[in-house]
């Protein structure tokens, strides 16, 4: 009887030889991440210590990461005060993996963690953000939890009462057509298995199309795995994982590379040949309402968003810049670009992508979650339509329940910016 990736990781994190799906375990946490909602975590953490006579002290300040990204710079005095409280807590508890609002080291948590080498294969990572599934791209078991659960992790250093999840094996074969990207693959998969198709399960990615995919693409795939309900997405680490960790993330220490056992037991196996995939679009108001771009019809767009933790990395900006270089964004369309981190922003500046995008008419914003969660930096008007490379299109998501959000790849977004309608990048803007 073999073990899946996550069964192996949970065995290691509990000091056991093997654990099986359905067992209840309490794994040690290697990294615990929060963003602005650390304000609530701190409140719940202090609540745990209340009337105990003990001094509130986090279990290990080196294993906690806090990144400001959801509302940067603060959109309200309330947020600014929350951020101030968090800074004070970070200083008092000596938390070093803290990324404030800064042009040298700031950005979105799901980019900051990998690019700084905070995520290692085979470890357990938790975050108070549902898209913490992203870090499975580096072979970690990484999942989202609530603020009170995080307060418990800060206290004890382990996650309590975790039921070992079952795993769905996804095998991706074939070769992507030009202008078909990892985003199209994950949208297709979500459409296929539905928004609850992987609820309480892990999506483990295999096959030649995944092996050929770089870490940026794998981050996109694992990021959106939660949109199928998955506890986590995970890609067994390989040469590309090692390359990324050593060359891009600057990891110097030991890296353990291991995959699942060949005879591991899966809840289900899903095979997808990516050769036939078209660019895909998730239509309002659920992420599993997915159609090939050719079947979407003529949809006029008002706002285009490129960036976020899903598609704000250098290759995503490169795709958009290549399509938009020397072109103009259609009148009546506003395009907002959110690089995933300031490191990426600086690289994109150097390579001329930012200039290409701005000359075409795009507005390049500071790295952060921006308008994706509907707080600031690009709300939609009544009846307006957004086409976005972000990960959610729920009603009200971009701040207005009377607006619509479509999701797509950076190639579809950029091609549509030129025409003003949802457009197939393989045909270009005519």
């Amino acid at each position, binding site marked *: 009887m073999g073990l899946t990736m996550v069964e192996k990781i949970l065995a290691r994190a509990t000091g056991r030889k093997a654990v099986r799906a359905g067992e209840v375990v309490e794994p040690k946490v290697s990294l615990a991440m929060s963003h602005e909602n650390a304000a609530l975590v701190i409140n719940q953490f202090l609540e745990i210590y209340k009337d105990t006579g003990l001094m509130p002290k986090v279990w290990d300040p080196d294993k906690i990461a806090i990144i400001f990204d959801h509302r940067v710079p603060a959109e309200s005095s309330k947020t600014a005060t929350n951020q101030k409280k968090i800074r004070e807590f970070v200083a008092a508890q000596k938390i070093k993996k803290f990324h404030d609002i800064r042009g040298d080291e700031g950005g979105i948590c799901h980019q900051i963690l990998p690019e700084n080498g905070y995520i290692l294969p085979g470890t357990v990572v938790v975050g108070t953000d549902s898209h913490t599934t992203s870090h499975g791209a580096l072979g970690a078991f990484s999942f989202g939890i609530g603020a009170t659960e995080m307060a*418990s992790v800060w206290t*004890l250093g382990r996650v309590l009462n975790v039921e070992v999840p079952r795993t769905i094996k996804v095998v991706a074969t074939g070769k992507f057509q030009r202008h078909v990207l990892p985003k199209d693959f994950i949208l297709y998969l979500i459409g296929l298995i539905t928004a609850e198709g992987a609820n309480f399960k892990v999506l483990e990615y295999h096959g030649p199309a995944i092996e050929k995919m770089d870490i940026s693409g794998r981050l996109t795939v694992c990021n959106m795995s939660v949109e199928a309900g998955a506890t986590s997405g995970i890609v067994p680490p390989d040469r590309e994982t090692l390359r990324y960790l050593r060359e891009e993330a600057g990891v110097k220490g030991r890296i353990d590379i291991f995959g699942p056992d060949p005879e591991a037991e899966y809840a289900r196996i899903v095979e997808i040949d990516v050769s036939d995939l078209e660019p895909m679009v998730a239509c309002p108001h659920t992420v599993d309402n997915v159609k090939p771009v050719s079947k979407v019809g003529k949809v006029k767009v008002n706002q285009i968003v490129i960036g976020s933790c899903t598609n704000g990395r250098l290759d995503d900006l490169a795709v958009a810049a290549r399509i938009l270089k020397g072109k103009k964004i259609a009148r009546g369309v506003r395009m907002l670009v959110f690089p995933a981190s300031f490191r990426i922003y600086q690289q994109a500046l150097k390579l001329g992508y930012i200039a290409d995008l701005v000359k075409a008419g795009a507005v390049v914003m500071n790295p952060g979650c921006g308008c994706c969660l509907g707080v600031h930096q690009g709300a939609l008007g009544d009846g307006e339509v957004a086409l976005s490379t972000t990960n959610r299109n729920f009603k009200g998501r971009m701040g207005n329940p009377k607006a619509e959000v479509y999701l797509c790849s950076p190639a579809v977004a950029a091609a549509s910016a030129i025409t003003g309608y949802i457009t197939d990048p393989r045909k270009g803007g005519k």
Partner: protein
Amino acid sequence: MARVVLKLGDDISTDIIYPGRFMATVLPTETPQYAFADFPEFNARLKSGEIPPGSVVVAGKNFGCGSSREQAASTLKGHELVIVAKNFARIFLQNAINLGLKVVVCPEIEAEEGDEVEILPDKVINKTTGKEFKVEPLPKARQAIIDAGGLIPYTRKLLLEKAASRKKA
């Protein structure tokens, strides 16, 4: 016995339960005002106090999908609503249990707004239609937290045990 005060469909996201634009509000004492803020009529009824504690929200599949925001659970807990759904998204279910929000997994539930229902450990009885629906037990991993009255008291107990064993050693 309790009354169904809201009936919802499948895939009700945390953006619907607690819209993102109110996320700067974090404290469980302050979040209840924004419950279902984009359903102004229902939100107003909640705030007016006309809906008694223990009233029932009935939903379809995948209730609480999307963001991990705990406000979605605390805002409902603040009104002492009971959520009966065909099933729940993972993080929402855990947040609900951690905060002591009453959630019931009832895969076949059929009930309309205004119906009277009785919630028992193993079934939900719709008194208005006379039909009964089986209840699925919550994940066994979470029972200890439910029994302790939520994750805060549960963790506090473990913390004190750890501190005591250190003292002994």
